[in-house]
């Protein structure tokens, strides 16, 4: 019974997830359903719990309530099918190691205890570096790489994991335009190959061009679904609240996609 699949048709299924730091809820009553093969952005204001959401799903921080299923099973049983790209600032880039070595770390899970990475692992890591156009930097010490290059190394480390569901925490933060384009292209290819991509994203301007699924988060889930349905002025206002002034006239969408609702439009004007 314990092995029975729960919501196996979904890449990610989250129910009632609640996380708090010192009595302050960071995530409250999160219900999320993501079909496989989408590229989803998790967007919300600062402190909305975007990073916490990913960390709670990957069991890196404890949750007070709720459960998570990835492709029908708890995360513990699905580690091999999940790839993870933490925030670039989460590690000390002065650490004495090379780009190739960092990518090889993505294979440690498959290697298991005691076994050392060998020629095969190095070749796989090299291929991943080629995929992100970083092969020339394989033997560079990681502190000598630019921010964008470091981010690509992190992405390559997730690529060697050969996962089906990928979680990326702010992969486009503080990177150059070339890197951003490269990352989006690679993620798009993964999605086209049927993988599911979940990206914590900070830039509302690019949501519609990069992603096909959107989760608007602000402690709770404000809205979720295909970008075309969810990316509406009303939803963004509900997610961003008072910060909405910052967004006005800045690629803020018209309320078109939602059915006409005079009352909502009126409240919108009040803002």
């Amino acid at each position, binding site marked *: 019974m314990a092995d029975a699949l729960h919501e196996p048709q979904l890449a990610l299924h989250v129910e009632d997830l609640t996380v708090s730091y010192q009595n302050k809820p960071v995530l409250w009553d999160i219900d999320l359903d993501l079909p496989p093969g989408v590229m989803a952005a998790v967007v919300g204001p600062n402190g909305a719990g975007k990073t916490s959401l990913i*960390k709670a799903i*990957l*069991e*890196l921080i404890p949750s007070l309530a709720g459960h998570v299923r990835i492709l029908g099973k708890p995360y*513990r049983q699905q*580690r091999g099918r*999940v790839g*993870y790209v*933490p925030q670039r600032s*989460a*590690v*000390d880039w002065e*650490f*004495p*190691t*090379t780009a190739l*070595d*960092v990518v090889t*770390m993505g294979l*440690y*899970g498959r*290697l298991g*205890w*005691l076994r*050392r*990475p060998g020629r095969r692992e190095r070749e796989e890591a090299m291929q991943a570096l080629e995929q992100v156009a970083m092969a020339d930097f394989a033997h560079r*010490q990681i502190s000598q790489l630019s921010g964008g290059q470091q981010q690509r190394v992190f992405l390559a*480390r997730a690529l060697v994991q050969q996962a089906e569901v990928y979680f990326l925490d702010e992969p486009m933060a503080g990177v150059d335009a070339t890197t951003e384009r490269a990352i989006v292209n690679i993620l798009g290819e993964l999605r086209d190959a049927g993988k599911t991509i979940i990206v914590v994203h900070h830039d509302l301007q690019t949501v519609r061009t990069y992603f096909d699924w959107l989760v608007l988060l602000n402690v709770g889930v404000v809205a979720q679904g295909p970008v075309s349905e969810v990316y509406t002025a009303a939803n963004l206002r509900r997610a961003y609240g008072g910060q909405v002034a910052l967004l006005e006239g800045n690629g803020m969408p018209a309320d078109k996609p939602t059915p006409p609702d005079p009352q909502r439009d009126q409240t919108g004007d009040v803002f």
Partner: protein
Amino acid sequence: MLTLFVDYTIAKVTIGAVLLGIISGVLGSFAVLRQQSLLGDTLSHAALPGVCIGFIIAGTREMASLMAGALATGILAALAVLVITRRSRLKTDAALGITLSVSFAIGVVLLTYIQGTGNASQGGLDSFLFGQAAAILRHDLWIMAGITFAALALVTALWKEFKLVVFDPSFAAAMGLPVVALETLLTVMIALAVIVGLQMVGVVLMASMVIAPATAARQWHERLGPMVVSAAAIGVTAGVVGALISAQGQGLATGPLIVLCAAVLVAISLLFAPRRGLVEEAVERWRGRRQLEDRQVLSTLYGLARRHQDPRFSAERGFVDAYYGVRTRKALEALHAQGLVDRFRAEPDEAEYWELTEAGVEEAERLLADIKGRRA
């Protein structure tokens, strides 16, 4: 007879120094990379009460029980730091500092208590403060060797796990590694390294043996493996050189000498290591400034040539000197060495003239395009 005795002591101390160098270099590398250099300091000061308790329980200066006591209080102190940082709003440095001084105070109280009881065999217990290498027994060396090889075996076996946990703990946890257990294991091993050093350098100075070799090694290496090996080598060098200097017979304390040797090696590494060394950095900066001057003069020559609409326009040196208000001879010579300008003397007054070469023109155009590109 006397030389035999001296040699035997020197041999013991040297072996002790080698073991200490290896274990503190290897585990110190992980401590420093985890940004927990001060953990070694706290663990070593926390070893003092353990040594005293071990003595009280055993009733004699029995090494095994002193070490067991030191390990126990060391681990207790590490736990205390963990609990303080998790449960209170104190940051790690404050937690480390508080734990360090409280444990050391308890240790000193216990030490004076033991001295007050007048137990004859307490002779030399206070040598654990600054170490007394010559007092090491053959039996103690076996214990130190056992600990060192056990630690080396663990680090070798769990190499990639330790590396990942130190570099990126959340990725390691997502992958399913028991991060807390591995971090605890590293901390326990650092406590063991401290114990190995207790008799050699004492609780007060032991922290420097955890920090110094690793810091020095980091300067020379960009990969973890070579860094750890060379930290061990640096630790061994400091240990052996310090031991040999103190064996010269002037009664100088071995432990502090070992620490000073390590400090010298750190200073050398900070100054002279390639890429990360201060000297190379200074040279690079100086060279950069020189180059800037050269390039300035080069573009001036180019500008003059353009103004006279003659790419091979030759300028008298006084001309260029006057423009800058300083002598440009050095810069011109440097450009000459790079084949960017040519010199010749012309009649009637034997003045020195300079003109751009083919390569000089190209370089000047590249420079100006560069500057323009950056402005855009």
